């Protein structure tokens, strides 16, 4: 009986092209497109100081100012790679600065420097160089300061890895749609009452749909992680098992949520909208589209994103990828499982009461039929 229901649910789930999209195509598209696209952005490679220079111009410069300037320019040039070029036409140089040909024109005068920068299109690199020049011109190297380079041996999350998690997150959450859709179809065709009244019973329905969703979800996870490994050559390290575990827990959360919404709301359109909005909002807040490190910089939003289940899994997955298995992962798993249990409990309670009332009605009708 269970296998009959399961076969039916599995066939119907795969017959809908949208479900195939959710299971297979969406994660692949997000992983590949975003993975390649966001590489440079997530590696913080912006070309901040690429191909840049600063002009300088002598305007009755004193020897003191000139030698100080030489010193400063050599330091900045060595450290950052910005070229300093002397010019003879100050006005032309100003025009070229405004045409982004250089960061600035520094006029070396008798008692100081005049730093001319564009007032409308100065770049971030220009901002940094300007600040450094001003500081270096006013201060000497502080011999009371010790600077230490602490290079952390960490595996930074690259775009490939990040969007593997993101793509899977989107796909797994949308799997709830497949679940609710399955209930919606049973409601609209009236088969749900028939099954509840049969020997199979209400719980078989839930179990069948859950099993169906679980299999599809596992296929999703397998496809996404395999593809990522193949295309991007990612080294998942010794925490791969935990990474998969977190995804499975996310899957359980999604399935139980979809089942609950599907059984409580008979209207297909309403469930579709409810799950879509929830999934889109959770995914956005969790950083599935815009990376979470950008969202964390926005006031107020940096607190709101913490309510998203995708944010919790994102946090724990990035830690696991980096080799850290800490409380974040444990808390994420516990909370998601707790929610899944609650959703499942609600689903079971509701189907039990619904199936009792259907049986009671059927019994009453039978009694009526028996009476003359």
């Amino acid at each position, binding site marked *: 009986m269970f296998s009959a229901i399961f076969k039916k649910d599995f066939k119907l789930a795969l017959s809908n092209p949208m479900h195939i999209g959710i299971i297979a195509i969406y994660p692949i598209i997000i992983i590949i497109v975003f993975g390649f*696209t*966001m590489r*440079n*952005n997530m*590696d*913080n*490679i*912006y*070309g901040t*100081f690429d191909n840049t220079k600063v002009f300088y111009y002598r305007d009755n410069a004193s020897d003191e100012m000139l030698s100080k300037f030489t010193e400063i320019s050599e330091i900045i040039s060595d450290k*950052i790679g910005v070229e300093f070029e002397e010019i003879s036409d100050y006005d032309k140089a100003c*025009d070229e600065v*405004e*045409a*982004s040909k250089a960061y600035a024109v520094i006029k070396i005068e008798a008692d*100081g*420097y*005049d*730093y001319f*920068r*564009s*007032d*409308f*299109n*100065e770049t*971030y*690199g220009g*901002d*940094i160089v*300007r*600040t450094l020049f*001003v*500081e*270096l*011109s006013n*201060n000497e*190297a*502080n011999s009371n*300061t*010790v*600077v*230490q*380079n*602490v*290079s*952390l041996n960490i595996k*930074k*999350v690259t775009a490939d890895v990040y969007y593997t998690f993101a793509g899977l997150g989107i796909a797994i959450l949308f799997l709830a749609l497949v679940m609710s859709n399955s209930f919606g179809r049973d409601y609209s065709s009236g088969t749900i009452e028939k099954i509840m009244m049969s020997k199979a019973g209400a719980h078989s329905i839930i179990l069948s749909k859950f099993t169906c969703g679980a299999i599809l979800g596992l296929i999703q996870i397998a496809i996404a992680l395999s593809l990522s490994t193949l295309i991007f050559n990612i080294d998942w390290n010794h925490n791969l098992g935990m990474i998969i575990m977190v995804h499975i827990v996310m899957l359980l959360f999604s399935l139980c949520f979809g089942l609950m919404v599907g059984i409580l709301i008979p209207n297909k359109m309403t469930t579709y909208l409810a799950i879509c909005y929830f999934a889109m909002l959770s995914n956005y807040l969790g950083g599935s*589209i*815009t*990376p*979470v*490190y*950008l969202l*964390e*910089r926005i006031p107020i*939003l940096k607190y709101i994103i913490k309510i998203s289940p995708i944010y919790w899994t994102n*946090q724990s997955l*990035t*830690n696991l990828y980096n080799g850290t298995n800490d409380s974040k992962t444990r808390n994420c798993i516990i909370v998601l499982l707790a929610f899944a249990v609650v959703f499942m409990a609600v689903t079971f309670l509701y189907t039990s009461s619904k199936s009792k009332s259907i049986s009671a009605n059927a019994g009453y009708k039978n009694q009526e039929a028996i009476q003359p």
Partner: protein
Amino acid sequence: MKNMIVTALKLFGRNKAFLFSVTIIPTLLFLLMTVLLPYTKKHSVSVINHTDDKAIENSINGIDGINIVEAKEDKIAELITRGTIELAVVINEDPETGFAVAQIYNSGDSEIYDAVELAVSYASDSSQNSITSVNSSDRGTHNLMNTLPFMLYKFIEGASVLGAMIIADRKKHIKDRIMLSCISPVTYISGMTMVYFICSCFGSGLYCLVGGIMNYDFGMRYPIHYFIMLCFVNLFSASFYIFAATLVNSEESLQGVSTLVLISAFFSGMLFPFDYMPKVFKMIGNYCPQRWIVKGIENIQVSGTFSAAFPQIGLVFTLTLIFLIIGVYRNNKIINVRY
């Protein structure tokens, strides 16, 4: 013509959905997308100061062009792993020497490590007058360019209302009535287009005004140039939908055309910065009019002069003319009376 313009004004003006979609909605979407698309090329740094001496902390905080993020010391590794920050400077005091020890935490390949190190090395709390004077700048604080491709999509797609009106006129035979009168087909199309253009430019102006009020950085000497570029977009959008209205028979079918606009917007950098897109995507994007406009605006920003955008304006204008000519021709085809 005056009659056409007055009537078109009334028709557009009484279409509440159109008014909203051209005026209020773009501005609201602009504000929303600023939050949804907060891409930036600013490097992020954290400073954790365990001493009373503020010199190093102030020096780093004073670096223009970087973003200072608050962080706890035990979260540094996690934040760097996730990319939330690039560097973290932890300032302690050496108990033996009393020297300030600035540890710069990083993952190894930061573009700004050397700059930060320099700033730390030359940090001082002396308050002497600066010998370097810098000219002032009133640049905005928020980045406008992130949302530009999305806004261009919105402005272009907004002309679907114009296309729908042309189709509705055709279906209801209003156009036939008009064509039987002394009005030429060109006057009919021009009248409606002119009114749409004015309304859409008003919407673009509102968007620019809100951007200016909320201190968005136009990156241009004269922000009016930004508005002028948007006017070219509005002209292009009108001509595109005049043409599209001759290809389809119902208002609903125009949605298919809008999907095309959406796809080209995607390749122009609507969802994420164009510079980061794969080569293939960029190649496709370079053929999209939205990308030409963005490139034109970028050229104005970089060069400081409006003439830098002439090549892109030329391309857009040429395409506008082509769509307009073909659109008007196709609209008139049946009315080319031969008796």
